[in-house]
Each structure stands twice: as C-alpha cells, then as structure tokens.
C-alpha cells in the first residue's frame, strides 16, 4: 500500500513532535461535549461531558467496551449526531452543528457502507463528484486511490462481487479520496478474520504515516489499540478515563477500570507510607513495604488499590523474603507461558505469568505453597 505520492505525505514523525506548518495546533478539540439520547424517563447519557484534544497527524484510538460512548463520540465528530452540549473544534473552528456533508472529515464505516449499486471505482469517485471536482481530477485521483489500496484490477467490479478484505480497502480508499483533514474509522477491522485483521492493522498504520492524515480509530480490542495507536483514550460509561501512549496506558493505568480492561491485572489493597515525585512507598496488609508508581493527589496514610501486571511478578519457592505468599490453586500451561493462579494468605486471588524459558528452573504444582516477588516498578497506585 505504498508508492503513491500523496499531497500531504510526509515522513513518519515520532508522535507528539509536530513538524508540519500546523505545528502546535490540534486537529480536533472536543470541549465539554455531552450527548443525551431520548427524553423524559427514557433518557440515556451516552457521553458525559467529554473533553479531549487530538493532535495533527496522530493515530488516535478511542478504546472501550461496547456502550462506552466511543462510537457516539465518533459520530458526533462525523456529524451523524449533534451534541446536547459542548463544542467540537476542527482546526479551531466549531463544527459541532454542521451537517456531515459540510465537514472535511470522512468515515470508514464498521459495515463499510459501500454503495451496492455502484462499482468499486464509482464508490471511490463519489465524494470527489459530490465536491464538484472536474472529471479529469476525479479520474486521476480515483486511479491514485485504486493504486494505493491495490485494487486497480477490480475497479469495474460491483462491490458485492469482492471479498470482505477488498471491501475494507475500498471503504478506506473512498474515505481517503476527498483528502479529509481527519479520517474517522469505526471498528473497521472487526468484520475481518484474525489473520487479515493483523495484516490490515499494519497496513492502516503504514497508510496513516504515508498520508499524514489524522486518524481517529474506534475499537473495543485492546490489543489492536496497543499495536496501532500513537495515543489511546480509554472510555467507559460515557467518560474518558485516561489518555496516553500505549506504554503509559499499559504501564501506568490511572484507574482500576483501565488496568482491568487493558491486559490482565492483579489488584491489591495497600496503604501509602511515604511519597516522593511520581512514586511512593506502600505497605501491604502483610506488613511488607514496596515501592509503587504514584499519580497525583495521594497523601501518606491513604488507603489505595495497587495494580500489578501478572508478568511483573515472579514466583519463587516459599520464603520469608518474598513480598507475597500463597498457595497455587490452579496452573495453566500456555506454551510460551505458564499462568499460576494463586490464593494469597489474605484470601485474594493473584495471577503470576511466567515465561517457559529453558532455565526457569523450579517446577511447581497445584497445592504448593509459594512466594511472589514484585519488581521495583511492578506496582501502580490506582486513582479510585
């Protein structure tokens, strides 16, 4: 999916470092947007005062379970819905109340929404035609797009005569053809099988680098979000809980929901003993003290929840020096990894994931009493 010179094409930049002439500007600013569906008793708040800024040229992902409001936010940006309150700025101009055909943003639909009575080429040309472009420009640009998504051969086909993966490419080409300022993607890969989805993830990312267009991508698949995004906004029940890079979100989840939704997480109760910049010392119920990552707003003495990733813990033979102690309830062998499901002495469940590397040494069995060691940066204090 490369090789065509697109007008805005520019080399990939590390996210957050804007080098284009619009440096320092945000592509989209969502300010205090609320969206309520229905009226009276049947009111449902789909978005509850959401604010977020999406930068130029970034691959931004809205991640959350179904019903969290991510698709509503996308549809508000596209113009298929209008906010109950708040502003949506595109390059500093409020577009919240413009109809969709007046917004320089285009959408790749979950169902692709290809026009069944038109050919592949006619679908791709549609937006340009509606913009009143000259015939030669439409033809040239359509040809470019067909080449970009490697669909030249199938240009004259009806959209019902091509495969799901091909339909996906056509949908993408159609949305890119009018050169939108922002491309909105509503779970575009969810209908593809696993292998194709993996391929398309890389191709999409590549395409975003090549075109330099801001992508806003909606998904409920945390792995997809981590793979593709420059930044991720995690959403739940109409709110954005955390915005950050995949690394941030995974390593420093701010809330229990984020920690639980992305990857597997163990939760432990603890009490803050001492704080310093960005980190703290916490005391576990067993009395052991360990370091932990610290968000703002915690004072020594406050009761907190800790999140510990299963792969950041290490299982050892029962030993007084171990941070945690418990019994193996269950042991799941997964090829590269083994998952140990422990019951800690305090009664909590705790999972440890260990790689099955050649020298991992000791073999444990269900019912064994074991200890767990946590690395220095394994624990993260959660906000709630």
């Amino acid at each position, binding site marked *: 999916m490369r090789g065509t010179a697109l007008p805005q094409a520019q080399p990939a930049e590390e996210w957050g470092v804007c080098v284009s002439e619009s440096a320092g500007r945000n592509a989209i600013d969502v300010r205090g947007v609320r969206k309520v569906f229905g009226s009276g008793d049947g009111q449902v708040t789909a978005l509850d005062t959401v604010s977020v800024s999406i930068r130029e040229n970034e691959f931004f992902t809205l991640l959350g379970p179904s019903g969290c409001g991510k698709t509503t936010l996308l549809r508000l940006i596209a113009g298929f819905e209008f906010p109950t309150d708040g502003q949506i700025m595109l390059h500093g101009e409020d577009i919240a109340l413009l109809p969709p*055909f007046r917004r320089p943003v285009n959408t790749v639909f979950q169902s692709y929404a290809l026009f069944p009575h038109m050919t592949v080429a006619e679908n791709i040309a549609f937006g340009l035609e509606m*913009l009143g472009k000259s015939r030669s420009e439409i033809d040239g640009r359509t040809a470019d797009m067909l080449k970009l998504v490697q669909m030249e051969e199938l240009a004259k086909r009806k959209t019902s005569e091509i495969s799901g993966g091909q339909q996906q490419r056509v949908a993408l080409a159609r949305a890119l053809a009018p050169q939108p300022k922002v491309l909105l993607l509503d779970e575009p890969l969810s209908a593809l099988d696993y292998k194709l989805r993996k391929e398309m993830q890389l191709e999409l990312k590549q395409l975003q680098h090549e075109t330099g267009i801001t992508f806003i991508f909606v998904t409920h698949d945390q792995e997809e979000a981590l793979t593709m995004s420059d930044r991720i906004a995690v959403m739940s029940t109409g709110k954005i809980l955390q915005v950050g890079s995949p690394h941030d979100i995974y390593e420093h989840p701010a809330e229990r929901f984020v920690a639980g939704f992305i990857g597997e997480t163990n939760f432990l109760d603890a009490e803050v003993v001492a704080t310093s910049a960005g980190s703290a010392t916490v005391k576990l119920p067993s009395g052991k003290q360990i370091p932990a990552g610290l968000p703002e707003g915690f004072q020594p003495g406050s009761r907190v929840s800790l999140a510990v990733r299963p792969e950041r813990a290490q299982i050892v033979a029962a030993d007084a020096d171990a941070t945690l102690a418990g019994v193996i309830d269950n042991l799941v062998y997964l090829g590269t990894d083994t998952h140990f499901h422990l019951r800690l002495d305090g009664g909590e469940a705790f999972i440890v994931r260990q790689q099955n590397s050649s020298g991992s040494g000791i073999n444990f069995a269900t019912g064994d009493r074991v200890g767990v060691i946590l690395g220095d940066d394994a624990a993260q204090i959660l906000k709630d």
Partner: protein
Amino acid sequence: MARKRAFDLRNQTGFATVAMFTFFMLYLPMAALVVYAFNAGNSMAIWEGVSLRWFYSAASNERVQDAALRSVIIAACAASVASIAATMAAIATTRTKPYPGLTFKYAFINQPLMVPEIVTAVALLIVFSRIKVWTGYSGIGYLIAAHSAFCIPFAYLPIRARLENMNLTLEQAAADLYATPWLVFRRITLPLLRPGIIAGFMLAFVISLDDVVITEFVKSGGQDTLPTYMLGQLRRATTPEVNAIATVFLLFSVLLVTAFFFINRRKA
C-alpha cells in the same frame, strides 16, 4: 403409515391431503372457466367442440375494446399517482423514531384496507354524485381519484418493506462524502428503492384493474371498465364470450404476478 418410514417431526396426519385438495380446488374452477372459453357452441351449458370464435368475438366487440382501454388508462393513472404518493409516504414513515402523528399516518394510509369495499363505494357515490351535479364534470377523473386512494396502501406495502431493510448507513456514508440531502436521495436512496417502487406500482396496477365494486358505484354512464362490463354481461344469458374475456384477463394477471414475484425475489 408404514412403520418402516422414519418419524417425520414436521408432518401432521392428513394435512398434506387437505392441502392437495385445496390446491386442486383453487385451480379447478379457473380451469373450467378457461376450457369453456374455447367452446364452439353458443351456450355455457353444452360443449360443442374447440374453437377460438369467442376470442375473436370478444376482440371485435367495440364495447369490450372500449372497456379494456378505459381499464388500462385508469389503472395506469391510479397506479402512478398511488406509487408516487406511497413512496413519499413510505419515506416519511420509516427509519425514524416514533414522532407525534406517526401512528395516525399508519392508520390513515391503511384505512382503505379496513373498510369493506361496498361501504367506501356508496360513500363515494354519495359525494361524487353531488360533485358531478355541482361541477358538471363527469369524466373518469372520479374513477382515477377513487382508485388512487385504495391503491395507496397496496403500493405502500412493498416500498415500505424495502425501505425498512435499507441500511441508513449508506445514506450517512453519502452525506459523509459531501452529498447534500437531495443528492443523497437521488444518487443513493432512489436507485436502491427502485425495485420496491416497481413492485408497488405493479400491485397497485393489478388492484385497480381488478376493481369491480367501487368502479360500479362511481362510474358515470358509459364508463364501463372490463370488470363492470363483465358484471353487466353476467346478468344476462351469458355466452362463452365472457369466458374468453376472463381468460385473457386471467392470463394478464398471471403474467403481472409472475413478474412481480421475480422482481421481489431478485433482491431478497
């Protein structure tokens, strides 16, 4: 039934026999009617050999020609009016959350289906006869108006069904690609709706063509359609000419229904 046959879960004792009898009885009378159209004799009672004379007789009968032409004109006009009005109404009443007046519209549009034809017929007689006196106009406009009204619910059915199955995201996608509402309608909605509109038009056409009761009460003198002409003939001593007309009529209806069947199936 023999024991060796496997137990068929779906079977019900005697149902297939009744069904076969029903199908047989549905077609037997029509078959008899068609057969007698080819009777060479003068009467309906006695079979006197095969002949096409009654078809020739019907075709050269000026009153039949006149009535047939009038039937087709009325059906074409009424079906056009009904399918355009029904298309607009279908767009206005589908793919929306309930709004004030929606149920009222459903009831209004389906009203002609809810009242026995004879009741509507005499009501039209009352009103149109007075209007005919007031205005002095007694053309086929009244018939077209009356037919349009009772054709609307029939045209509405397939159009609405097709609209409801049409994905609203296609129209949203077009709007997203800078198509204004009018262009969305012309380039997306209308082309996709076309099979439904054609089906609706054909249904309306058949319904209008078949109508006897309302036409009988609304028509002015000398405004026979084919069905009312046949009804008039049935009062007298009938000759197989009526069978011949009915046979041609039947053939035409079957052709239309077959076409409708295939149009509807194609995109299902």
